[in-house]
Structure formats: structure tokens, C-alpha cells
């Protein structure tokens, strides 16, 4: 019942190598994939103007935050909330930034309660110039916020240059944000 010996054809040689080739390509991609961060969704807001918004101040604190406030100079907008534990981790850095007066930092208080947010700022310090209270999170959605904390770098024209997801660490500040701020100040462009 055996098939009469068919000559080996060159065509079938590469066919037999095909599964191996496919497996190696997939393996290569998986290796590259190990270095990627699939959970970080890049913002589509980069390069776009800050969305139109006008948020009231926190109770007992002057200066709310609106689109026009972000025009005219380079600034950071930090999305924070009193219920956010990892916000505490990055908070000292913003206090330091304020102390050194390098760049104005504005706060976007995301889905928080006014008094709780004020308590939190009293407790851990208030590094912000302006703070807008985004009670229902709608402005956050306009900014493309999907978790707290997030930090945006805004250029003097009021465009979003950079978005940092998660708490800002010392290294992020040194390697990413500060060089970008310096570049923007010198009239250059920055990417991060």
C-alpha cells in the first residue's frame, strides 16, 4: 500500500522549513514584546492643543484651572486625587519643583471631594499653582486621562508635549521631563 517513491522536490524542502521559520519569527516578536509596555496606552493628545475646559478652584483655595491658564509659558499639569495612594509617592518631587521654582505645576484634582483634597494638600503640602476640581471626571476624559496619577507637559503655546503615566519618579524627572522643559524654554521642540 506504500506510495511509490516520489522524488524529493525542492518545493517541499522550504515548505518543511516554513513552520520553523514562522515559529522563529513569532519568537523574535515575543522577545521584542518582553521589552514593550502593553499596558501604557500612548496618548493621542500629544501635539494637540489643551482641550477647552474651565474648572473651579478647590473650596478654600484660590485659582481654578482653565484652558487659557496654560497659555504663555511651559507648565506641568498633574492629575491627582486624595484617594490615590501612589500620588503620595510622587508628591515630594512636585514640592521640590515648587521650591526650586523651575516650572509651574498645576493640579487637576480628578474625581475627588473638595474637602478631602484640601485636607490632603494640607497634609502632604501644596505644590500647585492652580488646581481645577474635576468632580465628575469629564475634563479628565477630555484630556485622555485613564488613571491617576498622570502628568502632562504643556508648552508655551498651550499644546500637550508629553504625557507621563503613573507616578513621576526622580529618574523620570531628570531624564525625561527636565530636559524637555529646558528644550522648550530654548524655543526648541521636545519629544518624550
Amino acid at each position, binding site marked *: *500500500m*506504500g*506510495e511509490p*517513491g*516520489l522524488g*524529493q522536490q525542492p518545493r*517541499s524542502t522550504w515548505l*518543511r*522549513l516554513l*513552520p*520553523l521559520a514562522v*515559529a*522563529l519569527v*513569532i*519568537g523574535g*516578536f*515575543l*522577545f*521584542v*514584546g*518582553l*521589552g*514593550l509596555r*502593553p*499596558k501604557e*496606552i*500612548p496618548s493621542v493628545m500629544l501635539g494637540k492643543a489643551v482641550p477647552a475646559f474651565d474648572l473651579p478652584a478647590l473650596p478654600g483655595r484660590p485659582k481654578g484651572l482653565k484652558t487659557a491658564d496654560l497659555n504663555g509659558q511651559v507648565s506641568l499639569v498633574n492629575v491627582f486625587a486624595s484617594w490615590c495612594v501612589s500620588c503620595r509617592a510622587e508628591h515630594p518631587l512636585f514640592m521640590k519643583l515648587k521650591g526650586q521654582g523651575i516650572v509651574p505645576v498645576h493640579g487637576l484634582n480628578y474625581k475627588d471631594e473638595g474637602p478631602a483634597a484640601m485636607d490632603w494638600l494640607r497634609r502632604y503640602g501644596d505644590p500647585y499653582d492652580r488646581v481645577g476640581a474635576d468632580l465628575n471626571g469629564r475634563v479628565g476624559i477630555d484630556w485622555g486621562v485613564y488613571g491617576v496619577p498622570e502628568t502632562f507637559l504643556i508648552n508655551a503655546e498651550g499644546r500637550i508635549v508629553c504625557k507621563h503615566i503613573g507616578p513621576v519618579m526622580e529618574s523620570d524627572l531628570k531624564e525625561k521631563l527636565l530636559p524637555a522643559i529646558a528644550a522648550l524654554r530654548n524655543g526648541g521642540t521636545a519629544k518624550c
Partner: protein
Amino acid sequence: MIAELGHYALVLALSVALVQATVPMIGAWRGIPGWIGSARPAAIVQCLLVIVAFGALTYGYVTSDFSLLNVASNSHSAKPLLYKISGVWGNHEGSLLLWLLILVLFSGAVAVFGGNLPAPFRARVLAVQAMIAVGFTSFVLFTSNPFERLLPAPMDGRGLNPLLQDPGLAFHPPFLYLGYVGFSMAFSFAVAALIEGRVDAAWARWVRPWTLAAWCFLTLGIGLGSWWAYYELGWGGWWFWDPVENASFMPWLAGTALLHSAIVVEKRDSLKNWTVLLAILTFSLSLLGTFLVRSGVLTSVHAFATDPARGVFILAFLVAVIAGSLTLYAVRAPAMKGGGLFAPVSREGGLVFNNLLLSTACATVLLGTLYPLFLDAVTGEKITVGPPYFNMTFGPLMVPVFIAMAVGPMLPWKRGDLLGALQRLKFTVLATLVAMFLTLALAFDGPWLAIPGIALGVWMIAASLEEGASRIRLFRGPIAESLRRLSRSSRSAWGTTFAHAGAGMVIIGIVASSAWQVEKLQVMRQGESQAVGAYQFRFEGAVPLDGPNYAAVRGTFHVSRDGKAVAVLQPESRRYENPPMETTEAAIRTGWGGDLYAVVGDPTGDGAWSTRFYTKPMIHWIWIGAFVMVFGGALSLTDRRFRIGAPARARNAARRAGIAVSTASK
């Protein structure tokens, strides 16, 4: 002390595995009987050592030994015993150990029950199994050691997420792993056959029961998993095409194809190259699944191990196993000549068709699962490949399989007659037409796709029954004659009947529950009623409730139909504090016709509650059907052919006849 013993046993197991991976292989190559003979005892010793290691870790959990880092991070002294035990595999390190345990249990089973295998072949199979074991044991020992100590020991453990303490969840991973790892047997048999350069009917007979057993476990694992998703998630869904779900589904698809192509090898001595490749690919997909779950490469929520070292290690191992076996395949496949010839329309032709579509479907799922990664790696663009993609591609690919499934078993080997087969399916054709008209009449306003959908399911079930009936000439002669035939007929064939009918039931469940599901989402006050299809849901109020570690709100709904009380549903909405999480506990009432499903949501603040109701007609057919499929597989496993000794006799007979084994020689 016990833990150190376990650790030590695992180290010993690694050395035994190293020996078992090399000595029998060389022995089989050079023909040294002593070296060949070492495979069996080595496999048994390795199995015992891993059992000791696993037992030691389990002991650590049962006695709440918090000086073990793994126990301290994942257990708690106040946990019920069941969850202490299931906690063993509820974490990365422990689940790997379970993986390893199942692997060596399979090897041990071959060593103990594989007496019918020729010794050199068995030695090679066990050596290949040991190579896999070397990889996994090293992975456990060098990157994920569950026996690491924690000093000083904490007073109590951090506890297992209370939500994972579900009896269903406790036993889901072992089933899944029995399936995944069971395919390693098909892999080892394939690699051993490649090394020997021979694949024949006897080979297919040895491979099929192991593959079938793995397939049954995997089907059970996937089925149970989707059922828990359905009752736990609170959104009425049961399959989400999540990467982790796909990771278990791909080996299932490939394994299903393998089961069918192995039949052709067994009966007709054909499709040998392809079957061997499929055996390698099926296990490769199992390994890939293990990698995907643990590496965090895809956004599946559950990344067991985010440690890059672990990801690199398991990837290196994955590539070594898969590339190694596929290289061997590329080199050795030409040695295996296909035998039996057949016409396109024939049993073989049907099985090739089945394989063509199942593997295309599997490749599609693989591509869809990995595509976000490909695109991210190449362009940095992030996209989502969600359920709509899979439904739109996978569905149409499977429909022809389902149609052919009915006709295939009716076709004779070698050469069939499609028209003749259809004529023998008279009852099926009739039943399908009746089903179409009934569907149309009962649900004339329903989605039109439901009509062919239901008809397809009926087609599959009726054809299976009709094929079974014709096998015993039911109603074609005296009933005694039919019974006599029934008692003599092959269980394997009846397994097919059940498995195919079960698949038809799954289809009907899916179609009916998605086409005629009624879903109502509303805000309700106490005493208000809401009509959901033919049912009335009356809201009797919601009361706060304190659970052991959560605060809940329980709603009560009285469900009636035509004024008659049908059920009382009490869904809960729970809020856990530590860690903070909100869950919905749906209330589900399963009846003959389907499920009633109620969820209570948030209060609006002025005495009203958001509520959500579903009626899901025939949804339980999905799981009953899956169970019938597993039953079919298990029935097939009890077939005489697969029992110990039968393959050896067949092979010996073939040897005597001096030809490659084929069915005709039997």
C-alpha cells in the same frame, strides 16, 4: 525542614531528569539495552521526587508555614482547608510546580503502563518528556523557587484574594493543566517517531488515547472556566476572546485537529507528516499559552510574573523546544512516506477538510491574539483586537466544519459518494428543515441569522443520532439485532456520535442565548415591576448586609410568569475594603428553558437602584453540550483498541506480516 526536603527533592528531580533526557536517548541510538532500560525507573523516580516536592509545598500551605515566602504572600491561617490547598497553585511559583507535577505524572504513566511500547521507542519518548521536565524544573528552581524562606516569619500571611476562594476556581487550573500538559505526550511521541524516522498506524494508536485524554481535560477546563466567568462576572458574558482564554483555546483547536488527523494515520496510513507536525504544534501552543500568561507580553490582566528574567527564561526554553522539534521535523519529515490514497470525497477527505479549517481557525486566533504585539513592535501603534474580530473571522471558518461534521462519519474510507451520504441522512435533512420552519414560526421577528444557526445545531445533532442509528441498523430490522450490534459496536464510534452531538448542543446554546437574550437595564424603586420577555421582575427592595470581609447590598426580586411565581432572585453588590474592590454577585436561576439572571447595581441616592435583568434562553446547552463532548471523548477512551496490549498486538502482527502497519493488515 519539610520545605527544604521539598527543595532538595526538586534538585534531585532535576538531576534525574537530566539523566533521563540523555542516557535512554543515547542507549536507543547505540542499541545499549541497559541504557534503554534506564528510562523507566528514571521516570518513576523523577515522578516520585516531584510528588515529594509538591507535597512539601502543600504541607507548607496546610500547616500555614509563614516562614515560606510563597505561603506568606498567598495564604492566611484563617482560610478554609480547601483554599489552603488550592492556594498552592493560586500563584506563579506553585502553579509552575503543578505544571511540572502533571508533566512527570504523564511520564510516570508511560513508564508504568507503556509496557506495550517497544523499549527503544519508549526510551525516546521518556527522554523527550524529561527534556521538557529539565526546562520546567530549572525554571522553577532558578527563577521561581516556591521554597524560598522568609526571615523573620510574619505572624500571618497576606491572604489569598477572598474572591479567588471559590470551589470552582480551586479546580479550574488543574484541569486546564492536565489538558495543556497532556499534549506533551503527543509531542514526545511525535519527536520520538521523528528520531526513529517512522510513523505508522501503531504510532497513531499510541498517540490517540493520550491526546484524547488531554483533549477531554482541556475541554472540561475551558468549559468550566467559561461557566465561572458567566456566573461570577455579573455581565452575563461567558467568552471574551481574552488573550488568556485564547491561550487555552488554540491548543484545543490544534488538539481537535490532531485527534482527527491521527485517525487517518491509524486507519489509512496517510497524513503522517501533517499529523506529526500537528502534534508538535499543539504542544507548542500549550507552551505559548503558558508563556503568554506569565510574561505580561500581552495585556491580559493576569500577568503572573512581571519579572523580565522569568519572561526571558521561559521564552528561551519555548524557542529551544519548538525550534528544536521543528528543525528535527524539517530534517526527518521526508523519511515518512504517506500511504493510503483516497478521493477528495471520502472519510479521509472529510477529515482533511476538518483539519484545513480547524488549523486556519487556529492560525487566525493566534494572529489576532498576537497582532497588537506585532504592530506595537513594528510601528509602535497600539490597537485592540477584540471579540468583534474573532466573531467575524472565526465564526465563518467554523460553519463549514460543522456542516461537514454531519456528513463526514457517513462517508466510507477511500472513496465516498456525497449524494449517497446525504440520502442516508434523510431524517437529518428532514429534522433540519423542520427546525428551520419552527424557528421561523416561533421567532419570526428574531434575528434572521438565528434560523440557520439553530438549523446548523439541529443538523449536527440529528446527523450524529442518525449515523449512530444506522450503525446498529435501528428500525431497519428486529430490535434484538440492533441490540446485538450495539453491544458489539466500537465505543470509539459512539464517542464520535456523542462528541459531535455535544458540539451541536453547544452551537444551539450559543445561537439561542445570543439571539433571543432579553436584556433590561433600568432604575427601579421598591415595589416596581419590569417586564423582561415573558417574565415580570418585581423589586422587593434592597437591604445592606455585612459579609465577613465585605459590605454588601442584597436586592430581592420576585419573578413571575403569567401571574405565577417562578423564582426569587437575590443578587448582591459587594464592596471589599482590603484590597478595595467592587463586585457584583449575579443571581441566576436555571430552568429548562434557560436562565433568569439578575444584577443589582448602585443606588441613585433617592431610594432607587440601578438593576439589570437578562433572560438567556438555552444558555445552559453550551455547558451541557461541552460535557457531552467530554463524555464522548471519555467513551472513546474506553474503546478496546486503546486498551493495554492492543496496539502491541497490532504492531507485532504487522511486523510478522513484514509490512508497515495499515488497517488492511489487521
